[in-house]
């Protein structure tokens, strides 16, 4: 038996560590004097089950490659299609990073600029980052049209109080 370090093996190790961390965190759960089932009992039971499953997953992924030909083929194909080097990696995940970073920034500016402006900025930035900066006028129209339309629909038809910006006041 030879240990192989695949994507699944790394995932299994992360899961085992997460289970360990969560089990430690469960020790902080207060135990009240009342109630039949302790508040920590159910989460601990799940963590134990998840931990056992993660160990099985680790053993399967680390030592089971030779037994499963299909999995080995998938692993090889996966390795071939995976980006090599930092530049290729960034190019491969470009759009995903663009969405994460833009959305993260959106969440930070939302309390200051309010939902209308923040949503227009979110849509416009995403459209331009993923679709390119050339059809900029079209992207701006789509961003204003859709975000503004939804803002009006929720504010005036569904009567939802959407967040107002501390800087803009609306």
């Amino acid at each position, binding site marked *: 038996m030879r240990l192989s370090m695949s994507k699944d093996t790394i995932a299994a190790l992360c899961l085992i560590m997460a289970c360990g961390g969560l089990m430690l965190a469960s020790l902080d759960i207060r135990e009240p004097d009342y109630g039949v089932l302790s508040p920590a009992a159910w989460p601990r039971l799940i963590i134990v089950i998840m931990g056992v499953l993660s160990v*099985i997953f680790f053993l399967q992924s680390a030592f089971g490659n030779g037994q499963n030909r299909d999995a080995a083929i998938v692993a090889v194909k996966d390795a071939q299609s995976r980006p090599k080097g930092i530049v290729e990696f960034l190019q491969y995940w470009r759009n995903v990073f663009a969405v994460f970073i833009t959305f993260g920034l959106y969440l930070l500016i939302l309390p200051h600029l309010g939902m209308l402006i923040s949503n227009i900025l979110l849509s416009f930035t995403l459209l331009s980052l993923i679709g390119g900066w050339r059809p900029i006028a079209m992207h701006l129209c789509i961003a204003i049209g859709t975000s503004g339309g939804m803002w009006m629909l929720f504010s005036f038809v569904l009567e939802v109080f959407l967040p107002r910006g501390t800087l803009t006041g609306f």
Partner: protein
Amino acid sequence: MDIFLLALANIVDPATLLFMVIGVGAGLMAGSIPGFTIAMAVVLTLPFTFSMPPAQGLATMISVLVGGLSGGLMSGILTGIPGTPSSVATTFDGFPMARRGEAGLALGIGVWSSFCGGIISAALLVLFAPQLAAVGLEFQPWDFFMLVMFALTVTASLAGEHLIKGLIAGAAGLLIRTVGEDDAVGVGRFDFGSDYLLTGFDFIAVLIGLFAFSQLLSDLRNPVNARKALSDQKRVEVRIEHRRAIKILMRHWFDVIRSALIGMFTGTLPGAGGSIANILSYDQAKKAAKDDSQFGKGDPRGIIAPEASNNAVEGGALTPLMALGIPGDITAAIMLGALLMHDIVPGPTFISDEPVLAYSIYIAFFLASFIMLGMQSIVLRVFVLVTRIKAYVLATIILTFATIGVFALHNSVEDIWTLFFFGLLGFTMRQYGFPLAPMILGVVLGDIAELNLARALAINSDPMLFITRPWSLFFAIIAIFSTVFPLFQKQRGSGSLLERLYSPFLLLSLSAPLFMMGGVFRTSLAVLAIFGSGYMLLRHWARGANTAN
């Protein structure tokens, strides 16, 4: 009769009818766009419905669902790309028919098969949900707890070779639900001193993040595909041929009924949805055909089977939801969320406690199928326009909409953070091959499982009751066998010991709780199960002896 009339008045109210028409239209569009799943459409409808009365909100969601189930056929037949996983098999024969100039007929067969599947499943839902609810009244907390465990293992087992990943995902879903204040005693769990974590994650925001956000990210990952439109067709000159389609359907009425029954049954299994039912019924239609040479080349039966079955799935999925409070699939889990949002807890007493709402659901289901039939031709024209929109534009609009929708659930920015975190988690899980369905079911059923565990232990602290009570034992046995099922499926045709013993042992094991339940019917079932098991073992033994000779 009064209840029926009250429910009818709820649904035929002009505002409800208008929302249903919009819902069916939106569902048809959503179903027809590849990458935009029905579950995503239903989950995004949820924020709209929370200000509506429960019956109106549920009718709108059912309309989106029925529309979505039928929408996939348009894209599948006209472009060869299935709009949803539940219409994959429709493309096998629908697209070849369209290519030889019979697109109108193929669409007609698809539309009418969907309609028939929906109506049959709605009728069966009305028939079976109260019966199942009556059985559900026998359930005690031990049984409900084991039922949840069974639902999770069955869903995980559908991940096939990735069973272990499915089980881990299910456990992670249960764990996510424990974050925040404990419902029973109000003690904070895994809050790490944060107020945000102490309030717990809103499960609708978790669902939208896990399902919709992560799906959008997956669709946008490839920069080339993200900038592509589904189709560059300017116009589609297709008229749906209703008359010819009805004639063909009448000729193959048995295929319609068989496929609808397959769909209904698949729908009742937790986690198994239209994506499995359409392939299964296509396969059965092909096997049952005297001449299957035209399958894959444009045989009408190849459209009838998947479309009748995928529309019947939801009737099946709603049956355990309405009767037991256990959703049959992701969309039914979202429906459960909609009910909980209106403080209605489905369970065995739901139909008797909320008869008007239950009947409203039945009527909405029937009516939505009729609306779908009328709207297909109109939506077909809009579909061509939508397919010309580039993928990244659609994804951005949907993401912006999801953001406002999630906020509107509780007027809370924290829910948008939840959407973001779980979008990231869902995307990572997809990349690592973890199925999302068990996790979603875990999130939805987590509270039910813990509540029933606590109730059971409060009544009697003996843990053995979880496996010695008839129904608990019944669910425990199916849970164990469903966990072994992927292994059994893998070894099919190999003549291995597992393959030979799996079915007889399943039947034999199930006979024990059936005997324990008592009564003439269940005892007879137990006896039949033992005879069936004995027959299978003898057959295997005889076959083994023949091979040895």
